[in-house]
């Protein structure tokens, strides 16, 4: 079953944006999401393939609406709950109730500034 990430060769997305964007992060929270994911993989909480899987299984409408690091943050939340590090309720409480658990909230309350 094709997932929303697997769009190679699909028409309608327009030309590829080849702008040379040298800034790796556009907000501090993006750098924190990057570092958090690196630490969780390094500590063996999950592997990089599980992370990719979690990104790919975002609901398509959320996936397309989310930014790159919003997708990463979604995957981290899904995996932290799946691996039993935190419960969905704990996460939701810490995120101010806007995020939701598995499959919820494209970027939650963590949208860019």
């Amino acid at each position: 079953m094709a997932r929303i990430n697997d769009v190679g060769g699909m028409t309608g997305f327009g030309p590829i944006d080849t702008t040379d964007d040298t800034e790796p992060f556009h907000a501090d929270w993006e750098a924190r999401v990057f570092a958090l994911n690196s630490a969780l993989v390094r500590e063996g909480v999950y592997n990089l393939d599980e992370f990719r899987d979690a990104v790919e299984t975002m609901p398509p409408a959320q996936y397309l609406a989310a930014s790159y690091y919003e997708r990463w943050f979604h995957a981290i939340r899904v995996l932290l709950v799946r691996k039993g590090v935190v419960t969905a309720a704990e996460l939701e409480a810490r995120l101010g109730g806007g995020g939701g658990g598995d499959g919820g909230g494209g970027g939650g309350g963590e949208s860019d500034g």
Partner: protein
Amino acid sequence: MADRFAAGARVRTVHHDPTHHTRLPRYARGKRGVVIEPEGRHPLADVSAQGRGDAPVEQVYAVRFAARELWGEGEHGVVLDLWESHLEPEGD
């Protein structure tokens, strides 16, 4: 375990459609290509993505496809890194 394919081997990708993560993209399924070189052995991502610890460790190959084979047009080549499980020998 010996590599199944050598540089220059003609291969065809499998035509699977799994519900789980796969490193074989949809546009490259059932397509003919040529092995450029082996790139080293790695756990099969399709299995390790499921959180399983029993992913087979396989050779990963750089495989070149003609753009025309993938897209029906274009004169360039496209190189993909593909696990051995996703490749079958193509008769010559």
